[in-house]
């Protein structure tokens, strides 16, 4: 052993230009391809997540528009049944797995260390790994598309239709392997959020001072850690049924097709909450800024977030009400499915009360957040209707459910996300988005969305089943479907306007400054765009609203933002204790590394090998992955402790 320094008391210091310069040299990633492939900066990764997710949103949206054209009138033949089935499967997979989850991961990746007063996530390289795997899993899945071999058994992929007997091609293998691969990314990301929360909050950021977005992502991450194994296992079992001759879902050998549905929905329902809770958190944090007052009911809203996730694990059966289950379990799961709306009511009234008692400023971001409240309520009450078992016997698998789930996923994910882009764009880029264009895109999206999706409730009540590629004219569904199709194109136009706004504002928007909205939380205390090291000194946090303490005057405690812990001897960050966030140790953060990209590529080889039955390729991939992991974890001699991740 060398006499390496293993203990040090960090200094409290003011931030200075010299310090900023020194930190920039330590933290900045080299430009060019090298930096692109090796960067572990949470901000870069967060933006990549968001951009990639939006690309998938566009792809999934185009798929939806094609389907809307086919359904615009009865008996149209724009799409073949094969094409339609692949499109609706890919649309569902893309929107749910490749857009809705990852876009929130992107926001949380970017924002967490800033909200928590830290320099990076707990595991920066794992962070890069989860992005690369996400990207490669998405590419893996979409390779099937030009080949015409895309999955075609729906995003829920029920066997026996998804089994080899009825679906012998590689279509379903793309789905199964793609989902397992993506699951690795999501699990790794979730673990990273959990540990970051436990370890990397700024001193003083006790758990009752964390922004609601942090609560939302925390609940979602814990949910993911426990729920994703269910679907990964289901996919493994189905892959074995298809390729290795097992009998899990093979009813000819007493296998149980319903086992898939249980595993899928044990995952699927918590996942629904995982892709809305962080979005609800963003609203809870950003809405108060525009109402010029703190959120009403911080504690109830935080508790509602956590309890929603917990109850979310007990309602999976409501996706299976029509499968012939005993009335007693139907009754239990029906009641649970309706009870889960109570925490949602808490949040809803908290937001309305915040607006009511505040002085709202109608910025574009605010319009998205405020309109979201209405869409949330519509999606919520239609959820109560489908949660009522006997009524669900009628509603399930009709367009009523299509309407419900789009109010949930677009209303509670897309609207807050687009609002959040308007809100945090100045922080991302240093420039403001155009309010005028923003207002246009908001109204087009809002009107288009409701015209497209509200009528689907009606056509569902008129008996139109889901996943049909056409319908006959005497069923009376023509007019409503035409209206939906027109609305969907308006909605798409609104999204296009939003993208246009992003593109031009990135170059020509007005300069933002550190805190253009006069907001309360830590990310607005640093320059826009944010420097690589985030905080020049680690701030000391005294309240839930570090930047509003003076104005609120609720306590004489003051957060110390320009004067804090000096950590400048290499890439260092401060770890604090779990509950009360007292300084605990100095973390040595890893430098930029190619290992995450290499590991993701090696894993991709494994999945390509499994898909194509080139087992040697899978074995090579596995070996390369093992070597990468060993190199990654190899102990650093100076502290004699491996930088584990």
């Amino acid at each position, binding site marked *: 052993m060398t006499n390496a320094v293993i203990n040090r008391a960090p200094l409290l210091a003011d931030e200075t230009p010299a310090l900023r310069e020194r930190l920039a040299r330590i933290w900045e990633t080299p430009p060019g391809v090298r930096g692109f492939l090796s960067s572990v900066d949470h901000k870069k990764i967060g933006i990549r997540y968001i951009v990639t997710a939006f690309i998938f949103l566009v792809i999934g949206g185009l798929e939806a528009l094609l389907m809307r054209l086919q359904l615009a009138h009865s008996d149209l033949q724009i799409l073949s049944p094969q094409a339609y089935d692949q499109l609706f499967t890919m649309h569902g997979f893309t929107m749910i797995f490749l857009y809705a989850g990852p876009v929130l991961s992107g926001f949380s990746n970017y924002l967490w260390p800033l909200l928590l007063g830290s320099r990076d996530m707990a595991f920066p390289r794992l962070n890069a790994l989860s992005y690369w795997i996400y990207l490669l899993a998405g590419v893996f899945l979409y390779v099937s598309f030009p080949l015409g071999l895309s999955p075609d058994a729906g995003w829920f992929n*029920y066997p026996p239709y998804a089994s080899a007997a009825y679906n012998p091609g590689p279509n379903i293998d793309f789905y199964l392997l793609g989902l397992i691969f993506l699951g690795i990314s999501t699990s790794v990301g979730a673990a990273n959020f959990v540990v970051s929360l436990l370890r990397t909050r700024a001193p003083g950021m006790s758990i009752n001072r964390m922004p609601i977005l942090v609560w939302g992502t925390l609940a979602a991450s814990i949910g993911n850690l426990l729920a994703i194994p269910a679907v990964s296992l289901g996919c493994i079992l189905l892959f074995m049924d298809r390729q290795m001759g097992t009998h899990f879902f093979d009813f000819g050998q007493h296998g149980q097709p319903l086992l898939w549905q249980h595993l899928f929905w044990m995952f699927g329902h918590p996942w629904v909450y995982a892709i809305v809770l962080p979005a609800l958190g963003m609203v809870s944090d950003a809405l108060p800024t525009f109402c010029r007052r703190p959120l009403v009911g911080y504690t109830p809203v935080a508790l509602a977030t956590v309890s929603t996730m917990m109850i979310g694990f007990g309602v999976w059966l409501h996706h299976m009400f029509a499968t012939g289950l005993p009335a007693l379990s139907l009754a239990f799961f029906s009641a649970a499915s309706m009870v889960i709306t109570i925490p949602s009511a808490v949040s809803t009234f908290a937001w309305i009360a915040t607006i009511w008692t505040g002085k709202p400023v109608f910025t574009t971001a605010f319009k998205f957040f405020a309109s979201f409240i209405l869409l949330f309520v519509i999606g919520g009450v239609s959820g109560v209707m489908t949660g009522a078992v006997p009524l669900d016997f009628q509603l399930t698998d009709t367009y009523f459910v299509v309407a419900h789930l789009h109010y949930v996923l677009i209303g509670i994910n897309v609207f807050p996300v687009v609002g959040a882009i308007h809100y945090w764009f100045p922080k991302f880029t240093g420039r403001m988005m155009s309010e005028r264009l923003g207002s246009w895109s908001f109204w087009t999206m809002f009107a288009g969305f409701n015209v497209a999706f509200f009528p689907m409730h009606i056509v569902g009540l008129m008996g139109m089943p889901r996943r049909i590629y056409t319908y006959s004219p005497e069923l009376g569904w023509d007019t409503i479907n035409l209206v939906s199709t027109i609305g969907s194109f308006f909605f798409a136009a609104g999204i296009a306007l939003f993208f246009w706004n992003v593109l031009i504002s990135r170059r020509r928007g007005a300069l933002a400054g550190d805190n253009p909205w006069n907001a309360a939380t830590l990310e607005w205390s640093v320059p826009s765009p944010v420097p690589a090291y985030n905080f020049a000194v680690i701030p000391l946090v005294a309240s839930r609203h570090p930047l509003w303490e003076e104005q609120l005057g609720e306590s004489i405690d003051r957060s110390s933002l320009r004067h804090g812990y000096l950590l400048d001897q290499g890439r260092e960050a401060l770890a604090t204790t779990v509950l009360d966030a007292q300084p605990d140790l100095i973390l040595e953060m890893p430098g930029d590394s190619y290992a995450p990209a290499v590991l993701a590529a090696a894993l991709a080889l494994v999945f390509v090998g499994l898909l194509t039955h080139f087992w040697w390729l899978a074995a090579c991939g596995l070996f390369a992955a093992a070597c990468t992991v060993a190199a990654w974890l190899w102990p650093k001699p100076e502290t004699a402790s491996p930088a584990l991740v």
Partner: protein
Amino acid sequence: MRSAAAQRFAVLSALVTPCVCSAGPMSYFHTSGSAVDPITALGWGLGIACLAIVALIGVLLLAALFRARAPKPEGLVRTVSRSGSGLPWIYIGTGVSTVVLCGMVIWTLLTLKLVAAPHAATGLTIEIRAHQWWWEIRYVGEPPARTFVTANELHIPVGTPVSLRLIGDDVIHSFWIPALAGKTDVIPGQTNNAWIEADKPGVYRGQCSEYCGLQHAHMSAFVIAEPKRQFEAWWQQQLAPSQPPRSAQLVIGAELFRSRCAACHTVRGIGAGGILGPDLTHLMSRNTIAAGTFRNSPESLSRWIANAQALKPGSRMPQMDLTAPQLDAVTAFVQTLR
């Protein structure tokens, strides 16, 4: 809007109860049977309550928004203050929501009890096997000689509950006649039970509602509810074998049927016993063909026999490669299956 094609089901439409017709044959705004009427009441109740909730929240939201709206750029520099606690909103709002929700849960559970099982013993059990993409319907008679098989159109007597045994055979389907009962999935490897009852005579349309592959869109079922005596007569008629062919063309047609169609289709009385496709012994007593995809007319029969793949791509009915006279003979023959 109404093209010639829209007239296809003229016969059927006339029979469909007028109130159902107003919102289309698959609508369940209005229903007709004790297996579903409590659900419809619940649906209207919850639907209206939910609309009221949305309206109320919408009004509160609008009021909140315009109560103290601040101008855009200046509003943002305004001093932040914790004006009013706002917490009563959460207490009252959540409290009221919980009470309303409890009411909904209780009504839901009571309704579940009402529709879970028929109020009286059912006199009749029908076995339904779901296939890609049609319904096999077996009437189990006492003695067994009174058992017969038909497809896609289910006759039931008015005013009595009928038990359905739903048996899966290939992939998962879901049996659904909106005006008579909610959905029950048909799952291979297990038998699910459901029941229906029609209060009024009529034709009730339904459709498979669990995604089952390429022609999921074309897998309709019909329930024809008729007075008991008419139903008995129908049953009696279905038991009869087919008539022997009475002309030279029909003899050729029957022979062609035996050689080309009998591997899949049964026609009792001519020695055709295939079980992969629908039993065609009384094909002409059915209003539609191909699981409700076409009206049962000589033209559509001929087109269907000639090239089913063009009409219902992916269907299990293969392309037949028949010469024109052969096609005419087979079409003529199947039209004698009354």
